[in-house]
């Protein structure tokens, strides 16, 4: 097909704008995380660098760019420098098909969802390569953990995306958002949103699933040997991925720019609405990071293979039957409410207040020490009764 | 009052002016008497010398029988299941090993002492009786040069490989304060 010069220029401008949106989103996330976590932890967070600390990510970027770039002598230099690229590029290419408003999109593929899934798998290779090529024990451990975790959490995300595709009869983002005009998919099938969020957390490596970047165990995982600009690329890629999970959640589950106000919104308002929803999901991710400790690797694997994957298959089957035999859509809602609400009710019925129950159980077998009566306050005669006897340097 | 100058050879006691040394008299309270009686029954003739203070009786035992006595204290009537503390004291002419045993069941404390020659101090290891002894012995070996045949590994614990000398001994010089 003949690509005229103007098409090429238009495309490059669009790509450049896309790159800026993604990069600005990631930078704003860096600032938002430190401020929001500060807020949760009762401290102000960065507020000295520029107004409200807004220039803090820029100061970090300048410092990282001007840092000496050290590569360990025993590492395979070529692969060592290829790994950040392999992690960074997929997280940006994925933005090609994300529509920020009805027609604000670079290339609206009709297989948009499938394109996202195909590209986002590539970053696993980058992480493992980074771990292996920097030739340090911690990096290898981090790399293996990353491979195990990301591969096993890829399956639930893919099945959830297929369920959404089935619900909206197409894999095209715009059609998915149009299908949610009346009721967003989070109301239709809340279980899918919960599984998507958990798997998304694991995909991005956020607490409680950040075992490959675990500070206290594997000291930075695959990125332990990187410094300066290369490490900044990994750092940026991680935040871009978080933003991708936020945008995807907004598009697929919260009804993108369509849901509460219908299709007649001007472009700016619909982009703002979508960004609002995306930041809402990102705030949930940061909130989870502040409260939960880290899971152990075998618990993490068990959760993926024993809970998330079977549940997502069941949901997939029920969605398929609903599509084939035209059951009413609320069948899925009842299923997901059954799966989500029942265990919570049973759990709370069992332990009214878990902390109190623990305290009672433990103080039951505690050893009680009873006080002996105090002897009368006898003022011993040879003790000098002045209050402060100075000078005794003993 | 003459400060104990570490440089001066400690062989001859530095002449002391200052008030005469008072020796603390050791009196046992009634609970201490019971424990001392139990200890005497357990040790029998092996106790060369024994006294005590408040509720901690102590007994001096010959170095060779210490392992047997400790085993008897642990398994016997007193049930000393915890080696609370083990230390070495450098009395210039001899090195004294002191073991504080404690029984968590009947809440009694006993102190065993054994004297070792200053030049080649060695005593049987108690690591097979109490697990805690392994690290105490490695530390005593580092700082005082006491040898413990029977301890699994005597690699330096607190000091590093190339450290010459045993800093716990009184003969080891301390850095004087250099005015920078």
């Amino acid at each position, binding site marked *: 097909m003949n690509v005229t010069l103007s098409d090429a220029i238009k495309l490059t401008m669009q790509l450049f704008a896309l790159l800026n949106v993604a990069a600005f989103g990631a930078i704003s996330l860096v600032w938002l995380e430190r401020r929001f976590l500060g807020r949760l932890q009762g401290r102000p967070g*960065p507020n000295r660098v520029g107004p409200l600390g807004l220039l803090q990510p820029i100061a970090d970027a300048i410092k990282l760019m001007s840092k000496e770039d*050290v590569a360990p002598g025993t590492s395979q230099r070529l692969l060592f420098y290829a790994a950040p690229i392999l992690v960074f590029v997929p997280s940006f290419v994925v933005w090609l098909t994300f529509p920020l408003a009805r027609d604000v999109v670079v290339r609206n593929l009709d297989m948009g969802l499938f394109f996202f899934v195909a590209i986002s798998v590539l970053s696993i290779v980058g992480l493992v390569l980074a771990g292996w090529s920097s030739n340090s024990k911690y990096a290898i451990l981090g790399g293996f953990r990353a491979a195990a975790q990301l591969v096993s959490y890829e399956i639930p995300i893919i099945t959830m995306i297929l369920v959404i595709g089935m619900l909206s009869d197409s894999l095209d983002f715009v059609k998915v958002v149009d299908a949610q005009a009346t009721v967003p998919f989070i109301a239709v099938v809340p279980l899918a949103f919960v599984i998507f969020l958990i798997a998304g957390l694991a995909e991005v490596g956020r607490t409680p699933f950040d075992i490959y970047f675990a*500070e206290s165990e594997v000291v930075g995982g695959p*990125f*332990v040997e990187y*410094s300066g600009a290369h*490490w900044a690329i990994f750092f940026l890629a991680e935040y871009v991925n978080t933003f991708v999970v936020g945008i995807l959640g907004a598009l697929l589950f919260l009804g993108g720019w369509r849901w509460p106000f219908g299709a007649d919104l001007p472009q700016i308002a619909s982009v703002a609405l979508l960004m609002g929803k995306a930041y809402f999901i990102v705030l949930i991710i940061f909130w989870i990071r502040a409260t939960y400790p880290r899971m152990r690797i075998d618990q993490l694997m068990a959760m993926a293979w024993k809970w998330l994957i079977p549940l997502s298959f069941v949901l997939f089957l029920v969605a398929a039957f609903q599509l084939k035999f035209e059951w009413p859509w609320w069948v899925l809602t009842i299923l997901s409410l059954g799966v989500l609400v029942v265990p919570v009710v049973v759990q709370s019925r069992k332990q009214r207040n878990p902390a109190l129950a623990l305290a009672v159980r433990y103080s039951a077998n505690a050893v009680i020490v009873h006080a002996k009566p105090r002897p009368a306050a006898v003022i011993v005669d040879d003790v000098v009764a002045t209050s402060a006897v100075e000078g005794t340097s003993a | 009052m003459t400060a104990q100058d570490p440089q001066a050879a400690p062989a001859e006691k530095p002449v002391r002016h200052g008030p005469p040394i008072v020796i603390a008299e050791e009196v046992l309270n009634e609970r201490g008497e019971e424990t001392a009686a139990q200890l005497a029954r357990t040790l029998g003739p092996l106790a060369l010398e024994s006294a005590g203070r408040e509720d901690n009786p102590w007994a001096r035992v010959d170095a060779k029988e210490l392992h047997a006595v400790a085993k008897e204290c642990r398994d016997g009537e007193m049930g000393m299941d915890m080696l609370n503390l083990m230390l070495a004291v450098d009395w210039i002419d001899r090195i004294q090993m002191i073991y504080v045993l404690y029984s968590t069941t009947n809440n009694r404390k006993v102190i065993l002492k054994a004297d070792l020659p200053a030049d080649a101090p060695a005593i049987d290891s108690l690591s097979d009786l109490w697990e805690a002894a392994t690290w105490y012995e490695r530390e005593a070996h580092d700082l005082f040069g006491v040898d413990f045949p029977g301890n699994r590994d005597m690699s330096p614990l607190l000091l590093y490989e190339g*450290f010459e000398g045993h800093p716990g001994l009184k003969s080891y010089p301390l*850095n004087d304060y250099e005015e920078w």
Partner: protein
Amino acid sequence: MAVDGNNDTQSLPLFVPQKWNREEGGHFFHTDEGGDVSLGKGNHPAPSRMNNVPGVITGKLDDLIAMGRSNSLWTLTFGLACCAIEMISTHMAHHDLDRFGIVTWPSPRQADVMIIAGTVVKKMAEPIRLLYEQMPDPKWVIAMGTCATSGGPYYKSYSVVMGVDHIIPVDIYVPGCPPRPEALMDAFMKLQSKIKSDAKNHQIDDLSTSSVIAEMTTDGTVPPANASREEPTG
């Protein structure tokens, strides 16, 4: 003691206080070639080759980089002793260091500032040296507390290094045992102003580890990383 900027002989050693030049005592590493490493309190980086070179306009970019560097100092998570507790409470909610963009980071590769918080024991000297060398340039060292500055309350001990500047060059000394969190924050403020002032006469840019250490040794040889350690019998 501003270093005389415009002498161009690179071989002039840094300002090394008089006491370090004496032959006996105080030397820590003896290199195989016989030269010994007595790292002075060399906290003034080498004079730069770029001073007053006609035709070179230096200015805003250095200040921008210095502003970036000083406002995002990442410290290495590395506490030795009691001062580490005060350092942690400085990072925590009450005296929040995150306001200045100072975050603790586990890996030396991504850290800029190494805070020596506590007593430097001889067994710990070598790991400190290795950690210092693994940190990429530009890096700074804060000796927190009197133990790190000069051995502190353990000046008589047989196993304490009398001050971390026996091992690595130090930028900021923080007095106190342990220094209060406000003192540590003041140290960071001084470090930030030092970074900005260094950038003004851009001595910092051509600073590389080996050049600094080479100029500090009396005979200019760079000690190998595993220089044999011999005890100062003092």
